[in-house]
């Protein structure tokens, strides 16, 4: 049954809010330990250069400087290169090509912001001053910045010809070409997926502590996945043995992917703490975040969609050049391949699909997963070209989609690009969105806008995503370096309260509330009696963290398995105490009941008995605490329809988003308050990509959008209220029937908004972001041609 106020499905107000609204949150930079020194990084001012000499003499003289360390010092201590966790196999069968990625640059620098040295000082002010005084002599090399020409430009990394990390393909090329050749109509489209800079509100930070007596290293850091960071730092980077390295990710102020990765700065901090025998703290300022956090997206794509005479899709062919930046970040290789190419079927029964991707190095910040990671890029290709196909063939965009959608009876559905969708009802979310958008009334609204000097446009995106990347066996066979399961532990304390340990990490998602809902529901104990612990390798056995909308679907499922083990062990104890047999004991709503009598006892009474085992089953271990690892058998497939309506001011080119509807199918929902919040935030980031945001470098590789004054993050007055609704087809293969909701907003919205903008302007494409300048130039071009 579950408690209607706090159980699964209830809009429970978040318990973690109490500390955040009172200023009692504890983020990494809030932590101060006795004797801590402050680190500031010396960074490359050049996109590409040889390091001739690092002269620290003058800087070292500044009173209060503890040490100045370089990449050579790090190498001498045996600290290795930062690895990429996914080996993509190229289309010719060879491995992808990976350059070394030293935490502090050695020999060469490869992007503006590449860390070259670290200054550690008694105060932050002194460290800053000394970092300015470090004299690095660089020998400039030609930078490779332009993605379109990167493959025919100077080689960035010795031996990596054409700056190519890999050429990868998926799908049947011949069948796709043949189907396109026979198509009644082919829509062609060239697309730019603009580079984004994540900008979690809390900048990255790290505090490294080394205890010389015990050999223990403790790293407080802004991580989405502390166990994964520990594994990488231990197994590949050689920072410390895994059992002597504790990583704590306390309150973390947003991540959106950017805090998944193992970066040079955090690595340097924990190493420096050991080497210098004192705690070292580093907190990025925002300018450093812009330069040196992994960026997102940045694709150039050509796509062709073939339709038959009735409008059925016959083939989709896609060629993409994906910018990987200067080095291969932790999961960078997987994003434009396995998280992108596999999603190109979208919601449709397109029988032939082929995609080829060139992953390319440039002298820019590394590019890796950012909210949606590959799936927004795939959705952008599919939903933009489908919309254009509707316009070119004179069909209603909603109806063309409906005609081609995978139908409920088609599931499980094998796509031509590897995935098997388990369930969905795409027409249902489309219909609900059309209703909420008052699609029928659009032409009248358009007429009214025109009367006021504004062009109105409407745009759709019927997206699909794949969440909870899985299963481990398949992913590892495709090159993943880690498993994709999650761990959980459900521990009854003797007094009947429950402590839950999860390997996922909450940095805004609300797990402390929603996971407590799940476990209290399952165990039938009060919500208030369940505490959720996350983010500390010293307290939690293992975990892979939070990314790819996986936490509830994978981590929540692990907790269900652990809770079920607890229930089963409790059944043995309850049967013994009630002098019956286990198969005569039912468990419901937190109580064990005998089938043949009205005797019962609560699971909390059983828990107490397990810790005070005077009257106890022979051979059974005391205690009531169980662990579980859950390895999903498939991805989950959230899907839905987003509809955007915009008005374009004819005079100024300003695009106003006047209406945004998101109807999403996330499977079963644990907490609608939290789910809607996730959608709002995702949509805001997607709208930001469509209308406001772009990470831009000049030809020499200087980042032009390096502050919040230059990089346009959405502000409150840039956005409308959103209309959010959900439909439900439960996931068929996890115990909660859930799919994941963290990224959907950012996946569907860019295509919906740009379809609306291009509809308003009457053009086949406009490169994101649709800034007033760009739109105004297009309007002027149209006026001049008229």
């Amino acid at each position: 049954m579950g408690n209607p106020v706090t159980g699964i499905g209830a809009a429970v107000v978040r318990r973690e809010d109490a500390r955040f609204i009172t200023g009692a949150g504890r983020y990494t930079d809030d932590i101060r330990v006795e004797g801590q020194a402050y680190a500031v990084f010396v960074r490359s001012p050049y996109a590409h250069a040889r390091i001739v000499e690092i002269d620290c003499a003058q800087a070292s003289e500044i009173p209060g400087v503890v040490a100045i360390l370089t990449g050579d010092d790090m190498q001498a201590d045996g600290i290795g290169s930062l690895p990429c966790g996914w080996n993509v196999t190229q289309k010719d069968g060879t491995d992808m090509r990976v350059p070394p990625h030293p935490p502090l640059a050695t020999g060469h620098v490869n992007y503006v912001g590449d860390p070259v040295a670290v200054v550690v000082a008694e105060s932050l002010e002194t460290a800053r001053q000394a970092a300015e005084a470090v004299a690095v002599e660089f020998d400039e090399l030609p930078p490779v910045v332009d993605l379109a020409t990167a493959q025919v430009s100077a080689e960035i990394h010795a031996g990596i010809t054409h700056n190519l990390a890999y050429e990868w393909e998926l799908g049947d090329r011949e069948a796709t070409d043949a189907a396109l050749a026979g198509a009644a109509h082919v829509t062609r489209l060239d697309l730019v997926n603009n580079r984004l800079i994540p900008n979690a509100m809390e900048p990255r930070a790290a505090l490294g502590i080394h205890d010389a007596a015990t050999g223990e290293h403790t790293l407080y850091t802004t991580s989405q996945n502390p166990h994964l960071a520990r594994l990488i730092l231990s197994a590949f980077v050689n920072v410390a043995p895994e059992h002597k390295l504790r990583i704590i990710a306390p309150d973390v102020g947003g991540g959106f992917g950017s805090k998944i990765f193992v970066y040079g700065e955090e690595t340097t901090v924990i190493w420096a703490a050991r080497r210098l025998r004192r705690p070292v703290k580093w907190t990025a300022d925002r300018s450093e975040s812009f330069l040196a956090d992994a960026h997102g997206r940045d694709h150039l794509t050509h796509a062709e969609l073939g339709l038959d005479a009735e409008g059925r899709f016959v083939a989709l062919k896609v060629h993409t050049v994906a910018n990987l930046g200067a080095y291969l970040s932790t999961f960078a290789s997987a994003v434009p391949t396995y998280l992108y190419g596999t999603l190109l079927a979208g919601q449709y029964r397109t029988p032939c699909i082929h995609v080829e991707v060139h992953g390319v190095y440039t002298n820019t910040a590394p590019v890796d997963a950012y909210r949606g990671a590959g799936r927004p890029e795939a959705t952008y290709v599919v939903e933009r070209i489908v919309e254009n196909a509707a316009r070119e063939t004179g069909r209603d965009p909603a109806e063309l989609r409906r005609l081609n959608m995978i139908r409920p009876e088609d599931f499980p559905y094998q796509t031509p690009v590897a995935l098997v969708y388990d369930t969905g009802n795409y027409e249902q979310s489309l219909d609900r969105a059309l209703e909420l958008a008052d699609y029928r009334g659009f032409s009248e609204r358009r007429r009214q806008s025109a009367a006021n000097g504004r062009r109105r446009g409407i745009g759709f995106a019927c997206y699909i995503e794949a969440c909870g990347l899985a299963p481990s066996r398949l992913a590892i066979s495709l090159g993943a370096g880690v498993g994709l399961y999650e761990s959980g532990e459900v521990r009854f304390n003797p007094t009947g309260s429950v402590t839950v340990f999860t390997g996922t990490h909450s940095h805004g998602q609300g797990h402390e509330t929603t996971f407590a809902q799940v476990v209290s529901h399952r165990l039938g104990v009060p919500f208030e009696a369940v505490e959720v612990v996350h983010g500390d390798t010293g307290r939690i056995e293992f975990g892979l963290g939070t990314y790819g909308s996986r936490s509830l679907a994978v981590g929540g499922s692990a907790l269900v398995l652990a809770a079920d083990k607890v229930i089963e062990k409790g059944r043995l104890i309850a049967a013994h105490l009630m002098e019956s047999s286990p198969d005569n004991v039912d468990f419901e709503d937190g109580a064990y009941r005998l089938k043949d009598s009205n005797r019962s006892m609560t699971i909390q009474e059983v828990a107490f008995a397990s810790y005070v085992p005077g009257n106890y089953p022979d051979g059974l271990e005391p205690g009531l605490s169980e662990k579980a690892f859950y390895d999903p058998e498939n991805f989950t497939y959230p899907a839905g329809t987003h509809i955007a309506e915009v008005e374009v001011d004819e005079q100024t080119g300003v695009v106003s988003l006047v209406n945004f509807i998101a109807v999403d199918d996330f499977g079963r929902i644990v907490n609608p308050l939290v789910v809607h919040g996730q959608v709002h935030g995702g949509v805001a980031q997607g709208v930001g990509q469509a209308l406001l945001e772009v990470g831009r470098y000049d030809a020499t590789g200087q980042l032009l959008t390096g502050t919040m004054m230059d990089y346009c993050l959405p502000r409150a007055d840039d956005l409308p209220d959103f209309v959010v609704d959900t439909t439900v087809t439960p996931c068929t293969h996890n115990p909660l029937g859930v799919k994941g909701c963290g990224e959907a907003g950012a996946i569907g919205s860019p295509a919906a908004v740009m379809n609306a903008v291009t509809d308003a302007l009457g053009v086949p494409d406009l490169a994101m972001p649709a800034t007033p300048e760009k739109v105004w130039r297009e309007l002027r071009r149209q006026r001049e041609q008229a």
Partner: protein
Amino acid sequence: MQITLSVNGRSHTLDVPENTLLVDIIRERLRLTGTHVGCDTSQCGACTVHMDGRAVKSCTVLAGQADGASITTIEGIGTVDALHPMQAAFRECHALQCGFCTPGMIMTAIDLVENTSQLDGSTVREGLKGNLCRCTGYHNIVKAVLSAADKA
């Protein structure tokens, strides 16, 4: 230089370098870490506090300017057991996710409600545009501010 300022009702006399920022006094000297630093260009508003009753970005206030001032930070407006109505509205409306922008957002919102006669969705959005949030899309923040304004 020596300055005297009142923070959350307590008077402090401090010796600080002249280029010290108010946010550093609050975070580093007084260890009130609820006030956050989210940028280095006074764009994000995470460091917003009240100075003599009005919202200011404490990263743009020098120590000397704060001399003699009365400062209120997020820690000074309410407690878990006795929340300020704006704090309560943020929680009820799920107007926060990661919580990092929240203290500054709440301090701005309180000023907005106290000093604006007629608030609606559009004036709230206008009033909050100096504070960035990357998690919520502002939807529930606007809702929370309007809800708190209704009750004020």
